[in-house]
């Protein structure tokens, strides 16, 4: 029987790691993710998890050791956030390029400066081009589930790419919620053992990993990563279906909420989706035709799902906790890019919100909604809207 426990998001991630039975874990503490390696250390210390836990001296070495272990042919896991993820940046590209299905849990946290330990998505968003599959969790249950699913997808022969699952700093990492811990036997069935055919370091089959790619070969190697990421779309859907059959919880690339007759659809990711659904309920009671959509899988970006969504509404309002300076929100860019060649497309609005732990309240959502309603009548005034900005201290 699955066990239900009240736990923090970080504990849920550690439980996911335990259930997935990685053979090597390498991690370095960083707020807000520190509890993940702490909890895993406990599991290892108690003999509940039979793994080598490498207590590395930096995040750069954490991901490097994971690359080494994964390349040697075993399932590996790590956790980090923010500056730690940024320090890994170089190796993230390499892990994907070497086609190593490492899984990483991220407590989504803002980047310095100024130093800030609270939630936004700038850390993972900034790694969107590395070739890692990206999942974003709405709550602690999703954090656990999407880490298991990340292993399943990453290790699929058609994919073989690393994957990260993000869950919001403090809002999830440090918040306790009831979480159902799946049965180990079912997880074992779901994931199977990692037995790579392509990459392992065995003296009986001496292969060379991490070659130099000349201009004559580099593009093909990168195309292979592209192809794998494209394949991931189908593999993720299959994994979601299998997960639902086994564990009863349904996941979708994009989860829609009251969108069918919506004039305005607000699109977001992560824990903000929960608040947004409550907001939609409230506005529906007031007679506002509003819906919500949650992007669960950000890489590969759910292009088709966004196209389908766009057909339903007059406005797509993107609420995102990240910014690409000099351009706008990254999710906005992806949504806009998905629709650019559509014959008919809705107004797309770019809202930067909740950076660095700024609590996203109903007042802020009202502000965004007001702008969306006005845009229908009077058109779009700004390329990018910063919501909840304290203009008085600027």
């Amino acid at each position, binding site marked *: 029987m699955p066990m239900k426990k009240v736990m923090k998001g970080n504990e849920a991630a550690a439980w996911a790691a335990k259930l997935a039975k990685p053979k090597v874990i390498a991690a370095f503490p960083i707020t807000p993710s520190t509890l993940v390696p702490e909890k895993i250390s406990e599991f290892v210390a108690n003999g509940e998890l039979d793994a080598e836990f490498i207590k*590395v001296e930096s995040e*750069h*070495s954490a991901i490097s050791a994971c690359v*080494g272990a994964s390349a040697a042919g*075993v399932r*590996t896991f790590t956790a980090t956030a923010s500056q730690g993820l940024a320090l890994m940046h170089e190796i993230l590209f390499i892990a994907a390029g070497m086609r190593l299905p490492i899984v990483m849990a991220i407590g989504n946290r803002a980047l310095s400066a100024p130093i800030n330990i609270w939630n936004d998505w700038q850390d993972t968003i900034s790694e969107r081009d590395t070739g890692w599959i990206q999942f974003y969790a709405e709550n602690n249950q999703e954090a656990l589930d999407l880490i298991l699913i990340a292993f399943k997808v990453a290790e699929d022969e058609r994919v073989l790419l690393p994957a990260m699952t993000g869950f919001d700093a403090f809002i999830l990492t440090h918040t306790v919620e009831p979480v159902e811990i799946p049965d180990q036997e079912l997880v074992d069935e779901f994931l199977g053992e990692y037995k790579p055919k392509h990459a392992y*370091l*065995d003296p009986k089959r001496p292969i*060379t*990993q991490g070659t130099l790619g000349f201009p004559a070969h580099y593009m093909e190697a990168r195309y292979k990563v592209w192809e794998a990421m494209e394949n991931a779309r189908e593999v993720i859907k299959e994994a979601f279906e299998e997960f639902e059959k086994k564990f009863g919880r349904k996941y979708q690339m994009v989860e829609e909420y009251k969108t069918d007759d919506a004039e305005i659809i607000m699109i977001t990711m992560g824990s903000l989706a929960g608040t947004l659904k409550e907001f939609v309920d409230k506005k529906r009671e007031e007679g506002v035709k509003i819906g919500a959509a949650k992007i669960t899988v950000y890489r590969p970006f759910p292009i088709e799902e966004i196209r389908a969504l766009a057909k339903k509404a007059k406005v797509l309002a993107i609420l995102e906790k990240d910014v690409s300076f000099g351009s706008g929100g990254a999710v906005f860019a992806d949504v806009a890019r998905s629709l650019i060649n559509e014959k008919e497309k809705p107004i797309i609005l770019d809202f930067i919100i909740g950076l660095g732990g700024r609590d996203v309240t109903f007042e802020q959502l009202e502000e965004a909604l007001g702008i969306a309603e006005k845009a229908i009548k009077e058109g779009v005034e700004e390329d990018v809207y910063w919501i909840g900005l304290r203009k008085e201290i600027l």
Partner: protein
Amino acid sequence: MAVRKPPITTREYWAPGHAACAGCGCAIIMRLATKAFSEAMEEKYGDPDAFAIAHATGCMEVVSAVFPYTAWKAPWIHVAFENAAAVASGVEAAWKKLGYKGKILAFGGDGGTADIGLQALSGMLERRHNVVYIMYDNEAYMNTGIQRSSSTPYGAWTTTSPPGKYSIGEDKPKKWVALIAAAHQIPYVATASIADPYDLYRKVKKAAKIDGPAFLQIHGPCVPGWRIPPEKTVEVAKLAIETGVWPLFEIENGDIRNIKFQRFPKDGKFKKPIEEYLKLQGRFKHLLKNPEAIQELKEQIKEMWRVLGKEVELP
């Protein structure tokens, strides 16, 4: 007449067809170190192939692993410049879990070891991974075209330490990573040189047979970087030892009071002047016109020996 047997194994893990420069000193290290490793693995585990290599970005990586080719006949992985020690840590941990008997060999140049990879190296040594780390020391960033590293010797020309009106060339003393490694009190630290290939071979073998981490700093001249003719690679390395420029030693468990020296003159007097070493190399050409700088270099070498516990005389 009986057939004489070579003192090293005839097994090869470093295949020809690689793109190292003619006369490359570090290619000699690659070949001899892997041979020695395999002999150790055979003696220890009965399997000469029981090892894998983690390699830092650098000359030897670039010349040996150009897709779809590889010069390596052992399982081998390269990830980045600064993380060979961390990658080796991961491979070792995985092998432990897989139940493999064997050892991991890590290679990094002086750039990847003394500079950008020093932190990862320290972490790997401190955590006591079962890895032999070999720093092939050609005394500059040769892969990017001869820029100074912290392992570049005093007075040497490099493209980022050019001699000029206000410069004598590299103006800092050479950093000895072997001593930093020894400070981790790991089982075995040694220096070696291609000048004495059988000493090198013995030391790699010894390191490979030890349980736990070992570190070797091995002198490997670079033909273009040192501006030497290709046939002089070994000769110049020999002169480094004979003039006192390159010490050969072993430190066990960090015990720096009991350093074992090889080819050290009994009376502490080196017979050949360092000028003989310098004059073979274009990188020191400007120095020969600068007796003060040569004197300074000599003082630094004496100081290096003093740190090692030896008073020496240089002619």
